[in-house]
């Protein structure tokens, strides 16, 4: 792959964030999954990082030398997938 092509590798498809942008953010000091999410929205889209989180983690590992275990988030939060809000109607108040 040529250098030019590499710049256009999309890591977060929901929010259209590229590998080059993530590397730039890491260089600026955003070195955790959450920090990169806050800076670039990677992982904030419809799939909530289910596609890109591991890829982002791998780039952080490459750039900072940290291990994947150190980088990956230990917790996940519901909902597992988007849920229509009308489904909550009629629940106990």
């Amino acid at each position, binding site marked *: 792959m040529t250098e030019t092509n590499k710049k256009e590798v999309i890591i977060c498809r929901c929010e259209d964030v590229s590998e080059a942008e993530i590397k730039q953010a890491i260089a600026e000091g955003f*070195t955790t999954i959450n920090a990169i999410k806050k800076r670039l929205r990677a992982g904030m889209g*419809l799939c*909530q990082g289910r596609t890109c989180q591991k890829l982002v983690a791998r780039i952080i590992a490459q750039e900072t030398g940290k291990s994947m275990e150190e980088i990956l988030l230990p917790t996940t939060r*519901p*909902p597992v997938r988007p849920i*229509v*809000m*009308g489904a909550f*109607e009629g629940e106990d108040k």
Partner: protein
Amino acid sequence: MRKTAEIVVIGGGVIGTSIAYYLAKEGRDVVILEKGDLASGSSGACDKAILMQSKKPGIHLELALKSAEIYKTLTDELEYPIEYANDGGMIVIETEEELAVMKQFVKKQREIGLGVELLDGKQARSIQPALADHIIGATHSDQDAQVNPIHATLGFATSAKRLGVEIYQQTEVTGIKVVSGAITAVETTRGQISTRNVVNCTGAYAPFLGRMVGLNIPIRPRRGQIVISEPMPKLIKGDMLSAKYIAAKHNPDIVEKAKDKATQMGIGLSLGQADSGNLLIGASREFVGYDKSTTYEALSAIIQNAIRIIPALKNINMIRNFAGLRPSTMDGLPILGGTELDGYYIAAGHEGDGIALAPITGQFMAEIICQGKSSIDLSLFHISRFDGQK
């Protein structure tokens, strides 16, 4: 890490980064210590409103109005896209009882100089077509505004850095050294920094940093849960709150005496739409210690409450939810200023008003630290107001 600093700001949220920025503008030598990432606490787990209408009429509202003025030019000043907009705000009224409360509230707000008007249901729906038919009225102010709180924090941090502030993330403060009545150093998980001045900007965690020097800082974490929707075309203009929320905020008795679960959890609508199109739907107000998890019970109540006011939400997806810890004080006002320990300053306890008040807090704290006093009297916000109270 640096060995010495003139001033150490503890906490990399919107308050800490704002103070560091204004101190750096005065030419001060500042370091920020943050135990997680920038905006990883409450500044990254809140809504986006710069609301004037929710502030207590009085000096609280006066501060907010000054802060709102600064926000208008902050994007240019920080050279950072903080997603500021001045789209106004609305407090929706569902019952005659709420209407009576809001009429009084509006009268007091106008006396302080807030431009706010009372609308009937039809007028309210002409501004927010998504409102349910049973809404009998609303208050509306053009002075309410919006910002992305994460980007406001990153904006202050980026500009502070440009002015020479050094920011250490993943660096937790473990102790503050005091020798014969004066601060000498801050100890962290990454070593020690010699300093004479510390600014505690750690929000709900401020009491822990107070205890390190024997100071009792009466701030309690109050959990606020928020639901995030999928991105949508424009549905909500500006900020929206329910009068119920205002009532709960300013009359804690209502919450304490309530029998139903939703009121006990402090459920009241706070609604906004981010530039990205996602709706932020809040919120609960719960005292559950430092537990940041979300609960099915509260989320369900938040969603049902929101659907009652905006029926179109029924068909929209929730993609995420989160909770933030609002640093809450007994009187609902922040703690700003110095303390009995020379060089130890506090700027915390803003509860749900931290984003709105961040610029003015930064400016005034910089004045207090550099000149010994601020250009307007902030003694009402001094920690000594709690002396003798439990």
